[in-house]
């Protein structure tokens, strides 16, 4: 086959261009650390990376929701503990007002104690966190319980719909509670009425009424404990799901890295090889283009 000047030049240029292209590719990988800079570098990896990044963002979003829910539930847990403590204390006060040997002064003390505990429970049940009443249901900004001018706690003004947030896919946890479910439940009268009745009964020394009120407080105690148990379960679930989501997030990050990022050892080694090939192509070009019969004729 005849070797022509144009073919020789073309081959020389192609050799240099190919080596340079390869060298630039590895140079880019080494300098940016990215293997897939544009979709055509690896279309499948690009599509998978988009899905993985979306999944990763979703994990992070659920973790954030979990963190926020945890804060709300921690507040709810504290309030419920407080309510439960106060309900226990109220039952103790009722007991102290009972008995044939109890003096008027002791009964008055018990009545005042009960009134104080009622107000404290009312305060707990009307606590708001981040602008939302914890026990107001989905009514949100509507105060669930309030006193009228006569100091009587009014019926529940919140919503019976509880509010939940998703801490994982298809895993909601309740973060805003139905106060009425604690305060009234299936009883005919609410907790505050039971308190008021107990106060009147304590002052009057009405043992039957005190007994009835004590039963109502006990049932409220049970309902609050039940809700607190749910809160505890939810807090545990958040911890479990957060761990799982963080693990999934790390795995997702690793998958994205394996898809998108350059293997630096491979890239550096490739760059060195490409550089050697480029220098060799340049050397070969300068060598072959220098020699021709004309050089000898002129010499």
């Amino acid at each position: 086959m005849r070797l022509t000047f144009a073919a020789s030049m073309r081959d020389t240029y192609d050799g240099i261009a190919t080596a340079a292209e390869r060298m630039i590719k590895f140079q880019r990988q080494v300098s940016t650390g990215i293997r897939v800079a544009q979709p055509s570098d690896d279309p499948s990896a690009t599509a998978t990376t988009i899905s993985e990044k979306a999944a990763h963002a979703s994990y992070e979003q659920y973790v954030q929701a979990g963190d926020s829910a945890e804060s709300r539930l921690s507040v709810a847990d504290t309030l419920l503990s407080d309510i439960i403590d106060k309900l226990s204390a109220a039952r103790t006060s009722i007991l102290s007002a009972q008995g044939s040997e109890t003096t008027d002064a002791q009964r008055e003390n018990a009545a005042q104690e009960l009134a104080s505990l009622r107000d404290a429970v009312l305060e707990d049940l009307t606590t708001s966190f981040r602008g939302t009443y914890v026990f107001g249901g989905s009514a949100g900004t509507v105060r669930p319980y309030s006193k009228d001018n006569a100091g009587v706690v009014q019926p529940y003004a919140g919503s019976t719909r509880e509010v939940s947030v998703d801490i994982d896919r298809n895993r909601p946890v309740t973060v805003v509670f139905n106060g009425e479910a604690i305060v009234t439940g299936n009883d005919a009268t609410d907790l505050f009425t039971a308190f008021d009745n107990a106060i009147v009964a304590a002052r009057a020394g009405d043992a039957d009424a005190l007994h009835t009120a004590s039963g109502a407080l006990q049932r409220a105690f049970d309902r609050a404990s039940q809700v607190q148990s749910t809160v505890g379960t939810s807090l545990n679930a958040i911890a479990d799901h957060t761990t799982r989501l963080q693990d999934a997030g790390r795995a997702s990050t690793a998958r994205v890295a394996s898809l998108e990022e350059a293997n630096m050892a491979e890239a550096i080694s490739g760059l060195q090889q490409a550089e050697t090939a480029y220098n060799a192509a340049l050397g070969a070009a300068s060598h072959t283009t220098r020699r021709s019969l004309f050089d000898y004729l002129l010499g």
Partner: protein
Amino acid sequence: MSGLYTSLTMAARALSAQQLGLEVTGNNIANVNTAGYARRTIDFAAVKPESSLSAGNGVEVQGIRSIRDRLLERRVLEEVPTEGRAKELTEILQVVEAGIGTTGQSIDGRLTEMFGSFSRLADAPTSAVARADVLNTAAELTQSFHEMAGRLSDAQRQADSRVRNTVEEINSLVDQIANLNHSMGASGPEGRLPLQDQMSTLLRSLNTLVNVDVVNRSDGGVDITVGSGRALVIGDETYRLEAVSQPPTGWAGVEAGGMNITSELRGGRLVGAIEARDVNIPDYLTRLDTIAYELVNQVNAIHQGGFDQLGNTNQNFFTPLASAAGAARLIEVDPAVAADSRLIAAAGVNEAGDNTVAKTLANLRDSLVLEGNSATLIDSWSHLAFRVGRDTRAAIDGSKAQSDIVEQIDALRDAVSGVSLDEEAVQMIKFQRAYEANARFFSTVDQTLSILFSIVGR
């Protein structure tokens, strides 16, 4: 028996022949870098002796030929349209690809952000900050859709512009070929050699732009047809192509003699630009529009079932769209909602603290609402990015593969027609030495004649 004068004439003719040989060599060397140039060779022949007692009458030049392999030249013309199409497609799709953006920071990132803001709204449905966040992320998303649709439309317009420019280039080449045909018809065989070189280059350039059929004429010229036998050049007559805006898109169709022949074209840069403009980019735009349209419909359907902070229900979040066509360009947050974040319906009942709708909107991120309920909105975007990457990769690979084929045929053609400097150096020495020998012979005959003249002169 010939005399010394005949020998002198013979030597003079030989000197001229060798000098012409040197000229041919010089011409080959001069055109070593000329595109389409086929090396020339000079044909010598011994002049027949006048009688049986004559040694001969020396040498005569029979002609100068260019060395061409018609088969290889035809093969090059057959392959360059495919290379041209792939290169054009590559150039246009690489622009489209650059517009797709980085993973996680394009439409996918904006969708994720918006769904994240719905999730944050679900956490705090009465929060004005969370509501403002939803509006901001939704505005960013709609802006991203607009920009993406704009980039794709720009790429489509640029492809159309390339179609129009390529038609102009084709017409320019057609004019040049017709002029060459005219020149070839007017010149003798020896004058056609440089014209053939030019013709070879023009035909290659033309075939790179559009696949044409070439029929050689007896006068050395060519007749050219395009598509299903539409004349482009017949002798020195040209039949120009026209890029005519076609309804309803306004994109240029290629017309020959008033007939739209766009669908008849098979290869070349023109077809690459048409393919990118009419097939690839519209496919991407349709997919983008479908994502935007489905997003609008899904979000609105959920949002309509909710209650805003003022107790209103049955409200749209995005301005409703009549159809998917142009959805990415037209998607907008409903102006009333955009102006008042309280109108975002986060609640499933008329209670300000309810977050049912906000949660459902956030969960739309994972809902299979596209591609026959098999893909999420982000999945569908990833499929779009995959298609752009796959098409661009296929075009790049196709372009490289086809360039390799053309290069190999070029190498074979060069092996026949190309100029080898070493070979020309040998030819130069050969003709130089022959010239020197003939000059020496001329000198010897001249000296012999001088001796004869000196004897006669005594």
